């Protein structure tokens, strides 16, 4: 029988991390010549994000009533696909309250009036 190197103890293995339930993940014996660990980590994060995004419908695709600013500076409540507004109010807060009256079971979504950290003006937000 070929002579083997000294046996490893659990603490002598190189680990790459630990799972949420406490299992130590050991580094493979042989290195990949195609991928680096960093490349794989980035690809996993990207793939999981894509899958998570695919699971959730986009906000703009929901059938909740929309609240958006008109050219005259007032705010309108509009159902998706409708030509005419269901209600027109002076402020966005009033429009949100009116939308909740019209469709009590659907949370209205409003277009952002202000720019915020990490968000653009004009994108949809839940109210």
């Amino acid at each position, binding site marked *: 029988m070929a002579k083997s190197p000294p046996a490893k103890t659990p603490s002598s293995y190189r680990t790459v991390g630990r*799972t*949420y339930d406490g*299992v130590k993940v050991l580094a493979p014996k*042989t290195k990949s010549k*195609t991928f680096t660990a960093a490349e794989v980590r980035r690809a996993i994060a990207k793939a*999981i994000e894509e*899958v998570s995004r695919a699971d959730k419908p986009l906000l703009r695709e929901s059938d909740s009533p929309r609240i958006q600013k008109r050219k005259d500076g007032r705010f309108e409540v509009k159902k998706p696909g409708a030509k005419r507004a269901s209600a027109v109010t002076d402020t966005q807060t009033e429009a949100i309250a009116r939308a909740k009256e019209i469709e009590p079971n659907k949370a209205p979504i409003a277009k952002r009036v202000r720019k915020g950290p990490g968000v653009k003006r004009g994108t949809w937000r839940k109210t």
Partner: protein
Amino acid sequence: MAQNLTKAQRSILKRAATALDVFINCPFDAEYKAIFNAIVYTVVRSGYRARCALETDDAAENRFGKIIKIISECRYGVHDISRTEVSGNPPLPRFNMPLELGLWFGAHHLGRDDQAGKKCIVFDREQYRYLRFISDISGQDIHSHDGDIPKLISELSAWLRHLPGGVHAGGGQAILGEYETFRSLLPVLSGQKNMAPDELLFADFNLMITEYVASLTEETPAPVDPVVAVA
């Protein structure tokens, strides 16, 4: 036996008894790949290190010598003899897996003291089929997976969990769910280098599993349709 050992020998035995390498002895063809992948995933997810003859592509090294070296370094073994069946013309059986299983038993029973603590699980397609071609190992506890991946993961994870030093990595169903998610992500992962999942080498695949398992969180997405993941 342990009473007659020297201090150095007892030390080797103690260290060998805690090693976490698992030797995987199974076919490597495309037809069997799904089962092989599931075995590697379950081994890594259970906190062990997967080893097999595919881990080095050094053509200069003799394949048989390579297998012997890996067997001698591994404390645990997963042997699948389910593909021992006649094929070709004239019809002859494929006997690589039973041969490697024999090497494993040889190392265990005839090898040095550090080989004495070897443990293995043997899978076949049906529970008593092996008696027709390798009846000398009757008395061994042979597990059958019927080519069914959920059953294989369930049996293998339960066996790994109950090994000395084994950890509870969740039941077979939980591991299967994670594995299905990993499988659905595989085309995206291999696509990073313009490769199809079938073109990945064992070292690439093992690295992907290792990094994926390390990245697992309780909120990791549930299994999805592979088409959605690729899109």
